[in-house]
């Protein structure tokens, strides 16, 4: 069994701030982290390694620094790691990114689709949740999103044969069954990520990480990077501000605070 996990290095957006003078992002000092949702996808893959001896490959598209997230995945138990990286990939939107990553996945699984491709539910920097579904289309493999539980059952010879997952949708939990290959996106409600053993971290630090560029992937130049991206960012601007209203300080006099609040609600007609 071969499982490919796609991980992304993202800025810790909880710490990204706007410079109020210039209205631009202040990136200095913002830490790069593994997209938190991807860690849950990796955990699902490693559980399949524990159970079936699956080969777990990790793929990341990004600048050379993104090797750090691949090393982290190796430290936790992934078998091999690939960085999809080239200046030619710069500015890719979700279509061009899905195309590029699907080529990389085919490349590392010998031309076809691996048994399972896992993504986190979404990346916290772009928040689009579009690349997992996009890759499933390029690979022409069934797509299951928002997976919170996964159960893989073996056939008579012990090899993984079929899966049953619980997908959290708006109207409830969908219990879905199917066979391989499949592309799934994984939720935080799935099993918590494991820690890397020290020995794994040391080995991962030394591991070679293959870099795949447009030549290695034999990518169509018209489909990658900014030129291969149908969507164009035209303008950027700071979010519209909402003005704060009345504020009272009720430290030391909670009764007054509660009364003022109740009065405000009643003045606004929000309480009977």
């Amino acid at each position: 069994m071969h499982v490919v996990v796609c991980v992304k290095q993202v800025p810790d957006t909880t710490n990204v701030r706007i410079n109020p003078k210039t209205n631009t992002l202040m990136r200095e000092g913002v830490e790069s982290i593994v997209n938190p949702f991807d860690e849950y996808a990796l955990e699902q893959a490693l559980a399949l390694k524990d159970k079936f001896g699956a080969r777990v490959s990790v793929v990341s598209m990004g600048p050379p620094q993104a090797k750090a997230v691949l090393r982290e995945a190796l430290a936790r138990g992934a078998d091999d790691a690939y960085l999809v990286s080239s200046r030619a990939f710069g500015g890719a939107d979700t279509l061009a990114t899905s195309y590029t990553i699907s080529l990389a996945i085919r490349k590392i699984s010998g031309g076809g689709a691996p048994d399972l491709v896992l993504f986190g539910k979404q990346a916290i920097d772009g928040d689009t949740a579009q690349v997992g579904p996009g890759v499933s289309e390029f690979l022409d493999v069934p797509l299951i999103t928002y997976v919170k539980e996964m159960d893989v059952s073996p056939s008579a010879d012990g090899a993984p044969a079929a899966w049953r997952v619980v997908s959290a949708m708006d109207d409830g939990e969908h219990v879905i069954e199917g066979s391989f290959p499949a592309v799934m996106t994984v939720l935080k409600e799935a099993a918590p990520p494991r820690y890397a053993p020290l020995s794994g971290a040391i080995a991962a630090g030394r591991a070679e990480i293959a870099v795949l560029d447009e030549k290695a992937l034999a990518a169509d130049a018209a489909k990658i990077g900014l030129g291969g991206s149908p969507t164009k960012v035209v303008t950027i601007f700071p979010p519209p501000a909402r003005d704060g209203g009345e504020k009272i300080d009720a430290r030391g006099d909670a009764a007054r605070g509660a009364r003022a609040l109740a009065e405000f609600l009643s003045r606004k007609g929000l309480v009977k």
Partner: protein
Amino acid sequence: MADAPVYIDPRLCKGCGKCVKGCGFGALKMVDAPGTNKAGKLAEVDPSACRACSACVSACPFKAISEVKREVVGTDDLDSYRDIWVFAEQNAGRVADVAFELLSKGLELKAQRGGGARLCAVLLGAGLSDDAKNALVAAGADVVYVVDSPALADYEANVYVDAVSQLIIKHRPEVVLAGATAVGRAFFARVAVKVRTGLTADCTMLKVEETKNKDTGAMQMLLHQTRPAFGGNIMATIMTPNHRPQMATVRPKVFKKAPPDPARRGKVVMEALKLAAAKTKLVKVIRDPGAVDIAAQEILVSGGRGLKKAENFKMLFRLAEILGGEVACSRACVDAGWCPVSRQVGQTGKTVAPRLYLCFGISGAIQHLEGIRGADTIVAVNSDPCAPIFGVADFGVVGDLFEILPRLIEELG
């Protein structure tokens, strides 16, 4: 190696750094270049961070920065794409509210677009009632395309993708919108790839306006798709100039639903499509009868990290009961295991637009504020007078929520 989307002429660059300030993506920096100009610095662009928005081109007082023109491979025959479509998600035959919200916005877009564009709804399902179709017409659809097939009885991403892609290829809409629900987000992203066009997720503003195509110079009616980026720290307007359809998703409650007009007339078109076979099997749907849709609530009482533990949410439930609302929370409470993710408000949770959003112990991270932008009235109680939540609250109380909350319950109860 590909070129960066912008070219900086080293002979014209004065090393002033204005372009660095003008770039919203942190793609420009000044590098030391002794002897090139008085400042001894030149601007340099990082092609992996540059989004070709051309803000730096206008920011440079010396005309040192220009856009690099490139060959465009887009959709053929752009002008043959015309109508504005809304995907009408339904569940058990009931059309989701977000479809009506999008039809209301669609009416505005149709007026802006002109040129005979029609507003159309796409309805997939099995055994669909006339009520659903009529409701879509009353909400503004000139045409309702219906695919009614047993294969569409349940949501299966792969069959949904096939149905909508076939319709797009057949009818060539210019704009296609869908709700950014669990269903809409997943399969729509795959549809966009299947028809090889762009898709902008979670738009908060949409308009159609005559715009100059930067690649061809032609004037076109383009959909301006505005969405928050980088955790809501910045807004970006995105366009799909050379590909059709122009596709976007919008979260529920971002646009307001206009009242239906039963006098409206529209055409229902039954589409008999040969659909791909389902590749997965839906065994069952486990519905939680206690589940609440916080996005549908008029009044939300919300708690954050300041609540300190799960059992303190009991007070919020009591207050919500008094006010006739429901309980929501911030991401921290979900991460701590105090609340289920279904109650989470914000960028990775739900967007809400209640009449009253009453929050306790929520500091107001930008990701949270993004999710409550549509609230009519925001009231906040927090012990930190500098908490960002007070910057958006219509009424704020600085104080200890554990002292204020019980007294408020007493006042109102």
